[in-house]
């Protein structure tokens, strides 16, 4: 549904996005992660047809964005970071203005606007958008992004101004959209936010895609390499005896707890050995790299 090929954007001699190759399948909820200034927003601006790439190309639903931005805009929705509205108009009037660009009838517009305002809990709000709180603006931003019932939704830092209740409602909304088969592209620098809703992620750093795939897959790819070794955490109620197995490389012991580095997953054999010695196993698991640590290490690069 979304594809970029060697996508590049240079601003005043500085490369903001550097040869980005990305692919997001239809119906995916994709998290676009990266520290501030990594090039996430610039990528979204190119994907939404608001700026032209310096090099490469990007396609949404098979349409090359730079060649036919209007056609792309008709099938996408975009929530910009720190979204803004016309302060002299109500939320309903703002949505009405945007909706007129889609060539719908007045009746269709009215129904869609009412539906969207209800969805973001702004129905019945009569005050002007200039008097809205940041959270209300963010919710109206979600409504304007969905005013055309888009196939693809681009959300740039969507929970930035939301309170916990608003953030929970946003997650429910994304789940619902995913259930309807829509493609959602969420850009954020907050891992927990992306983790909560996204099935796949791409990690951007200094304009380059560092990794793409499932969150665990990306974390494993980026984790410090330990060859083919498997790290097994073992904890027993009693003092841990010496463990012997031809697959074991080394053991870090700490009383009743140990981290066993082995050539393969030998948890079954270890459990059998400990059970035969009458020991009570409290924990036995393969140690996965800590996602937060892995991502933070990339952010700090």
């Amino acid at each position: 549904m979304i594809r970029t090929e060697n996508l590049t954007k240079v601003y005043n001699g500085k490369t903001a996005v550097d040869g980005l190759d990305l692919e997001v399948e239809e119906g995916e909820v994709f998290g676009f992660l990266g520290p501030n200034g990594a090039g996430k927003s610039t990528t979204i601006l190119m994907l939404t047809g608001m700026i032209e790439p310096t090099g490469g190309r990007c396609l949404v639903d098979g349409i090359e964005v730079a060649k036919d931005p209007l056609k792309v805009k008709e099938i996408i929705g975009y929530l910009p970071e720190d979204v803004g509205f016309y302060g002299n108009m109500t939320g309903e009037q703002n949505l009405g203005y945007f909706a007129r660009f889609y060539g719908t009838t007045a009746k269709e517009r009215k129904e869609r606007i009412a539906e969207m305002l209800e969805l973001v809990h702004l129905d019945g709000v009569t005050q002007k958008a200039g008097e809205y709180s940041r959270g209300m603006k963010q919710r109206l931003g979600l409504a304007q992004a969905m005013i055309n019932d888009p196939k693809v939704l681009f959300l740039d830092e969507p929970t930035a101004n939301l309170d916990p209740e608003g953030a929970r409602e946003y997650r429910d909304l994304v789940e619902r959209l995913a259930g309807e088969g829509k493609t959602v592209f969420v850009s954020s620098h907050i891992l927990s936010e992306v983790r909560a809703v996204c099935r796949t992620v791409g990690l951007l750093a200094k304009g380059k895609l560092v990794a793409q795939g499932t969150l665990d897959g990306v974390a494993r790819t980026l984790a410090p390499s330990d060859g083919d070794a498997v790290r097994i955490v073992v904890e027993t109620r009693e003092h841990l005896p010496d463990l012997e197995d031809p697959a074991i490389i080394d053991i870090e012991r700490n009383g009743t707890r140990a981290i066993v580095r082995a050539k393969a997953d030998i948890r079954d054999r270890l459990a059998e050995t400990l059970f035969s010695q009458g020991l009570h196993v409290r924990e036995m698991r393969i140690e996965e790299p800590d996602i937060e640590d892995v991502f933070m290490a990339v952010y700090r690069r």
Partner: protein
Amino acid sequence: MAFDRVLNVARKEFSDHITSRRFIIVLALFLVISAVSIHEGIEVYNAQLDTYNEQLQQMTTEIEGPYPGWMPEKPSIMLVFLFMMSYMSALGSILALAIGFDLVSKEKESRSLKSLLSHPVYRDEIINGKVLGGVGALGFAMALALAVSLAMLLVFSVVPTLDEFAAILIFGAASLGFLLAYFAVAITMSTVAKESGSALIYTLVIFAVVSTLLPILGTMAADVFSGDPPEPPEMVAPMPTPAQSSGGGYITASDDPRETDPAWRDYEEARKAYTEKRRFISDVSSILSPQMNYMVVSMAVTNPGSSTMYTAYGALQVEPGGGLADALGQVWMNIAALIVFPAVFFGATYVKFMRMDIR
């Protein structure tokens, strides 16, 4: 470019303008002062009409007048609009600047431009819609001012002829062109500046330069480069000056002895060359001033038959006895300048807006 998208933007902009407090306040002031000026103009018109009637009556009763062949000229109701023009150039420009200086910068500040651009609309459609909306609002203000003036004329039992009505419409078009000149300056500055405050300052600086400084500099340059005017030769007896009378009449025939005096003819030629040189220097700088161009065009429309149209910065010579078309023909450069000036600024706005960084 789809016109319905341009219209959507224009409709919203027009609605924003005519419902904004700023526009309503300036427009109200503009209309009130227009009405006052029209009233003042009608009083002067009626006074001139009385003088005209008296002179006409004298001509029928006294065959031997002081100037044989002299015909009184019936005052035109366009005189009324001459009064309106002076107020229009002050308050109208404020109205035009007020609606334009934050038209784009406000969108940048509120980040609404990014939201708007995420929907299916091209940048050129947005800027064209904004300009169209502004033109519509200024046209609305102008139409209201003309409607008020016409209503007042009718209330005072002054009914314009078809020609006068056409002249009023041309005056309205010239006034709109003048308003657009300053609207164009304001919207350009709004696109160039990052903030509305800076846009307002830039706009006021340009306004001051083109409305006041340029005409003054033109006059100063004319004084410096033209030198001293030629002195008239000594005459045996001073002759009455064949100029406009207080009642607006003019002399159609004379037996002026100066016409046969070679010294006087030389002086007249030297004076004519001096005036033309002076006018040329002054015109070069004045042509860049919408105020000056508006003034010259308005005087041609409101007073087409006068031999000399005096402005604040000098005199404009117009051939006597010509109609509206002749008068407009003589000020074609000023008319062209009133069109070119906003066109240049709108062009600059377009280019800048298309290249604007919206991050």
